[in-house]
């Protein structure tokens, strides 16, 4: 029996606006996760939370170009979504318990930015839940969120 390596775990398309989408009970038999988001936020930015952790346990570094300048930034949250966006986030070794969790993401916002970002969740726990949130706004209906697992 062929062994699939790149597997869709779950996919959500919003039928109505929502301030968050959560993937829970993530299987632990993959090595990496890939989260693909194609959507629009009414106002503000979107963030990621792992295992429901809303504490100050996230750091990020990124760079973007806006058509006239290139900027690098750093921060202490996982803000990765600028609307409208197509974002692909690779969450590496998500099930490992011997290291912090590192991700790298590319965000394409055709009207504003091209963004590359890396981040770290300072926790050695395996990731069992990934939530995409917009604290100050909502993702519009039709926004899609798909989670994949990659074997290793």
């Amino acid at each position, binding site marked *: 029996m062929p062994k699939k390596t790149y597997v869709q775990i779950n996919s959500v398309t919003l039928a109505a606006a929502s301030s968050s989408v959560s993937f829970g009970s993530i299987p632990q038999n993959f090595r990496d996760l890939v989260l693909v988001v194609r959507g629009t936020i009414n106002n503000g930015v979107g963030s990621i939370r792992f295992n429901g952790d809303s504490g100050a346990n996230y750091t990020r570094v990124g760079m973007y170009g806006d058509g006239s300048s290139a900027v690098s930034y*750093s921060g202490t949250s996982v803000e990765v979504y600028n609307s409208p966006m197509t974002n692909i986030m690779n969450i590496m070794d998500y099930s490992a318990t011997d290291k912090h969790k*590192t991700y790298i993401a590319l965000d394409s916002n055709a009207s504003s930015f091209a963004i590359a970002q890396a*981040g*770290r969740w300072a926790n050695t726990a395996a990731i069992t839940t990934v939530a995409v949130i917009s604290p100050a706004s909502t993702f519009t209906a039709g926004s899609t969120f798909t989670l994949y697992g990659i074997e290793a």
Partner: protein
Amino acid sequence: MAVRSLKNSTLENFANYSSSMNAGYSFQDYELIESVFLASNASSVSFNNLSQYATEYKHLQLRILMRTNTASEVGMQSVLTLNGNTTSSLYASHTLQGNGSTVFSQSIAGTFPGIAFTLRHPASNGVAGAFAAGIIDFIDAYSTTKNKTIKVFQGMAQTENNINLNSGLFASTNSITSVTFQPQGANGDYVAGSRFSLYGIR
């Protein structure tokens, strides 16, 4: 089965390809070839005998999570050597990087025995538990009419922040037969917990 070469290390390996060589096996479009998980430090990591996959895959991809035990992480990076060829004149790379405050670009050619700027990674003075993540694509890895181009996307968010987009050139039309990573200048080892996973893409 591909032969993996590791120096000064013990490791846990998983080779998927050998188990797939059963009659009737159907290769997938994106498939794990093999993974190297370091159980102890290693001065380099290699994937060898890659020519055996030439009829099955068109491209190769490496997914990596790693750090080193070098004393300082400032400027710490890995050099990627292809086919065991250390002729520096065959290699060039261009990088676009951000460090959290500045975006900068560099190019280098003919200096290193491999493609430079491939992976920036934490060292001993980095945040404990922090590893750098990277995805490296080898497009048309088995072409014998094209020089080899790799695409790197890599980053780490810790003491030394870094986000890196890199293109690398190996000016050889030879099919890729091996890939070797080593900290620049053989400065330090990859530490336990580092992981290198090779995938074939049809």
